[in-house]
């Protein structure tokens, strides 16, 4: 299968770009915003101000490119733990993301105008659910779509296959985006599956499958845009395989030196999605170092304000443990609630 690509490894356009100048700039800013969040989140984690955090460095374009095609109050996003960049771009406030990775319940719910479900920790479970969310849009007469992300390892789970099969049988408006980053913690893709391209599996479900350079924002955005348009037109789901790499460790508590070489990581760093996009803008005369500095400053300001906001969130109370289990508290929860309130 051919890989859709618009920028070369350095970021030079290989052909006419399908995005406007405004879109290119918007896309670059979104990439930088995601990277800034990721870098700063890791710092917070090391300071003990965040729990275990799964970084996405290297995978920004694969997530941002898809999220840029969606409307938070109309479409749906069901992300797995690695998709903070998608969540951020989709419209989740930074403060909520921080709280979420602090394992603070105040960050668990999306605001009412953001159709995002809290990050899924068990692998692949969100795929059949996303198919249901997508199908519901059609039953409700809406043209909204659902987008769901999964890793290459996750495609081995049964729910990946059941979800794709449901989506295809019902023609659900769904984007299933596989971020093929080469690894599932320490297990390389070739030990996960014998197929060369995950997107080939689309054929088994009778739906389109596309392979895209996941470190090329222009390519991801255009492929996702087409898939969204197809879905909105009622033409069903698309499987997108984004070839990318997590330069960062699996999580903040992982040590990748146990299973992969520094050379491999360095090689992928040469294809960094942000460097490529920046070079693209510079090449087209759309960007300057002065603008870059300004952007960095603005992002840092935004981040610090969000941390401050998150810090002001009230500590969760012990009795919150039994809240939101049922719409109305049942006798057992009520008894526990009373007990926990009495304790403090």
């Amino acid at each position, binding site marked *: 299968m051919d890989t859709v690509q618009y920028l070369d490894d350095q970021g030079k356009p290989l052909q006419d770009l399908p995005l406007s100048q405004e879109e290119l700039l918007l896309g670059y800013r979104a990439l930088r915003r995601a990277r800034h969040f990721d870098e700063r989140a890791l710092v917070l984690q090391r300071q003990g101000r965040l729990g275990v955090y799964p970084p996405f460095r290297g995978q920004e374009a694969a997530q941002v490119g898809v999220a840029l095609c969606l409307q938070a109050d109309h479409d749906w996003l069901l992300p797995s733990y690695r998709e903070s960049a998608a969540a951020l771009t989709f419209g989740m406030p930074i403060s909520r993301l921080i709280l979420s990775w602090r394992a603070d319940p105040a960050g668990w*719910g999306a605001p009412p105008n953001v159709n995002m*479900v809290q990050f899924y920790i068990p692998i692949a479970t969100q795929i059949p659910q996303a198919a*249901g*969310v*997508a199908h519901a849009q059609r039953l409700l007469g809406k043209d909204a779509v659902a987008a769901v992300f999964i890793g290459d390892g996750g495609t081995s789970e049964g729910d990946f296959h059941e979800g794709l099969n449901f989506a295809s*049988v019902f023609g659900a408006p769904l984007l299933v985006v596989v971020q093929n980053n080469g690894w599932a913690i320490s297990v390389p893709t070739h030990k996960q599956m014998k197929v060369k391209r995950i997107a080939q599996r689309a054929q088994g479900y009778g739906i389109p499958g596309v392979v895209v350079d996941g470190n090329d924002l222009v390519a991801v955005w255009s492929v996702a845009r087409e898939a969204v348009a197809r879905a909105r037109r009622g033409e069903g789901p698309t499987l997108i395989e984004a070839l990318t790499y997590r330069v960062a460790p699996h999580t903040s508590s992982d040590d990748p030196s146990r299973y992969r070489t520094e050379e491999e990581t360095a090689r992928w760093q040469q294809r960094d999605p942000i460097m490529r996009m920046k070079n693209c803008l510079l090449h087209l005369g759309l960007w300057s170092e002065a603008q870059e500095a300004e952007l960095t400053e603005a992002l840092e300001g935004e981040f610090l304000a969000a941390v401050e906001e998150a810090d002001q969130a009230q500590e969760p109370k012990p009795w919150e443990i039994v809240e*939101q289990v049922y719409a109305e508290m049942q006798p*057992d929860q009520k008894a526990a609630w009373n007990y926990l309130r009495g304790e403090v």
Partner: protein
Amino acid sequence: MIAERQTRVLNNVQAINEALDLALERDPRVVLFGEDVGVMGGVFRASDGLQQKYGEQRVFDTPLAESGIVGFGIGLAMAGLRPVAEIQFAGFLYPALDQILSHLGRMRHRTRGRFSIPMVIRAPYGGGVKTPEQHADSPEAILAHVPGVKVVIPSSPERAKGLLLAAIEDPDPVFFLEAIKLYRGVKAEVPEGYYTLPLGRARVVREGDAASLFCYGGMVEVCQKAAEVAAREGVELEVVDLETLVPLDTETIFASVQKTGRAVVVYEAMRTGGFGAEVAARIAEEALDYLQAPIVRVAGWDAPYPPFSAVENYYRPDARRVLEAVQKVLTH
């Protein structure tokens, strides 16, 4: 009010079919799906005629994939529909346990109320009808152990109809287990039209003072039979149908124990860790002072439900075994 209604004699499947029909008619958000529920109307005919009446958008067949069915339903519910899924047999819920444990029961909690799952999962369960392997399983204890779900097991057509309609209206996920033995095994007067019966209430189906039999689903019939036999000897047993396992109506349970001082818990799942163990533990924790004898359980043996139907009667509790337990609590 329900008592004043016109009634019709229905069996359990007919009552359930009527409830599904009324729910589909009343609320356009209700959708029905599962394996063979559409054209065929379900292997037990619970959804007979409903696809013809409401169309393929509202009543549809799915691929054969239980995790897919439950996960898909969770998605439908999150997006604002009222999914009613059928799992063909409760013993085939196991492939969906990941969806059930990881999400169905905790979506409200893990999104702090942002998304809830007003979904009903119906499944036939239980033995006594000579089915192949897995078909007779009673997995209610596994389901009751999932935080955030409700578990309802009706034992009569009138109750089944009203409870199912209440389950569909309920804002939380509800497992609705239907005893296969009772599908066509019982017939009763069922009120016409739409009505709901509250979830979370146990009911005394036969009053007595000698001992309390706590049971649900297919075991209610068995316990009633035992009570009839005992009554001929002048021993009046109280039969309490728990009906909703989660949330459990402990008030009614304790009141009965207070009255009789003796408790026998009857369930057809394997004994160890079965739901009856929970009932016994609650009584021991909260109502021990009323007891005049240790609580006795009558349950399936600690083995898979026998796949060889010739001996299933030895596995599934019957009136004789219930009476042996009664004897034990009376002579303590």
